[in-house]
């Protein structure tokens, strides 16, 4: 079942699920899925996302509504509520350098066990990670991340599920879309098959499980 209503889509996501969500400071985030997760009162989610946006925007809505127990992210500086919940101990925050975070998600979606990066060596980001030497140079091993659900938002989705993201709303979306066991997409415009040229498809229909109906 490719096409699904917003309510059905979110009903399929249980409390405690892990979600990888596209977007960058709320740009390119599937806002309607976030709104509906809040409306249905989902709890104890693990969130994998570039940043926690701002209060009341993008995945920031999930933070404000206390839907999230743990977030794996690179930046929380624009959302004081994330910091408050972290300091209060009700939200676990795992900070990962942005380039390492996106590679970890890519590894999860691409069947790789991890990548070696120089980023974070000798800093707090090294804590708990293995150091591996290749040809005399040290790297950190950053391991794969996957999620139960990937939630993405496209400019165009065709009926079959091909997705095109516009301008800087692409960001984490195509990477995240590969890393979820179940992939749900919302779109500004749902269009007939063939409207998106083959070279313009950024996430292939074959990896998208559900296109969420527009109103």
């Amino acid at each position, binding site marked *: 079942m*490719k096409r699904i209503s917003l309510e059905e889509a979110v009903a399929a996501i249980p409390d405690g699920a892990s979600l990888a969500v596209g977007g960058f400071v709320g740009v390119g985030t599937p806002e309607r899925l976030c709104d509906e997760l809040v409306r249905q009162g989902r709890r104890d989610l693990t969130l994998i996302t570039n940043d926690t946006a701002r209060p009341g925007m993008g995945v920031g809505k999930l933070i404000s509504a206390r839907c999230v127990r743990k977030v794996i992210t690179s930046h929380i500086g624009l959302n004081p509520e994330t910091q408050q919940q972290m300091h209060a101990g009700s939200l676990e925050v795992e900070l990962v350098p942005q380039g390492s975070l996106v590679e970890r998600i*890519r590894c*999860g*979606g*691409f*069947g*790789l066990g991890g990548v070696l990066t120089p980023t974070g060596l000798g800093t707090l980001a090294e804590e708990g990670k293995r150091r591996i030497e290749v040809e005399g140079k040290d790297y950190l091993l950053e391991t794969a991340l996957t999620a139960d659900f990937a939630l993405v938002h496209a400019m165009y989705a*065709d009926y*079959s599920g*091909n997705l095109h993201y516009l301008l800087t709303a692409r960001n984490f979306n195509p990477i995240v879309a*590969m890393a979820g066991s179940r992939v749900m997409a919302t779109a500004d415009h749902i269009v007939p*098959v*063939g409207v*998106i040229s*083959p*070279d313009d*498809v950024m996430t*292939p*229909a*074959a*990896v998208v499980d559900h296109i969420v109906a527009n109103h």
Partner: protein
Amino acid sequence: MNPQTLIAKRVALELQPGMLVNLGIGIPTQVANHVPAGIDVFFQSENGLIGTGPVPEPGFAHPKLTDAGGQAVSALPGACTFDSAFSFGLMRGGHVDMTVLGGLQVDGSGHLSNWMIPGKMVPGMGGAMDLVTGAKQVVVAMQHTVKGKPKIVSQCSLPLTSVRPVDLIVTELAVIAVVAGRLRLQEVAPGVGVDAVLAATEAVLEVPDHVPTMPI
């Protein structure tokens, strides 16, 4: 029926709606000609295409739209293209639901050898190792014997493609499933007896009491 056609037709019965399927060269390519009515699948070409369509009519081919062998193909509505890193992410990441590959040997545990004959033929593994390691289901489509000698052997003498066992072997004589590291005879071809399959197979086959005939 031509043995290759029979194999391709039987493999095609494994297709389920919505599957992302990668077909190797040779017999596997023919599977695309026998997709059952009402079953919509996505065919991937490892060079960077989902939605591979049939060979175009004369004058309608484009040199930048080819299959993994460099031969002109067409693209179906809803097709998409991507770079090689993404293409192999689809395979290795388990997004390819089924890959159909030719084989030189399959052993009694389901291991496949299909990429080289030392000292004789060294084409390179191309995408085969990634496909066998990463695809959700691996189907081998091959003739049961070569020059009268079994290709389903106790142990592969040729270099392995992957330590991950295949799931299904389809030949012109039989369908053999790999279950928990053993080979089980699942179907025989029309007019072929169990004894004939066993005689043409070196590896040990589990044979259930009743072996149905291929539904083709």
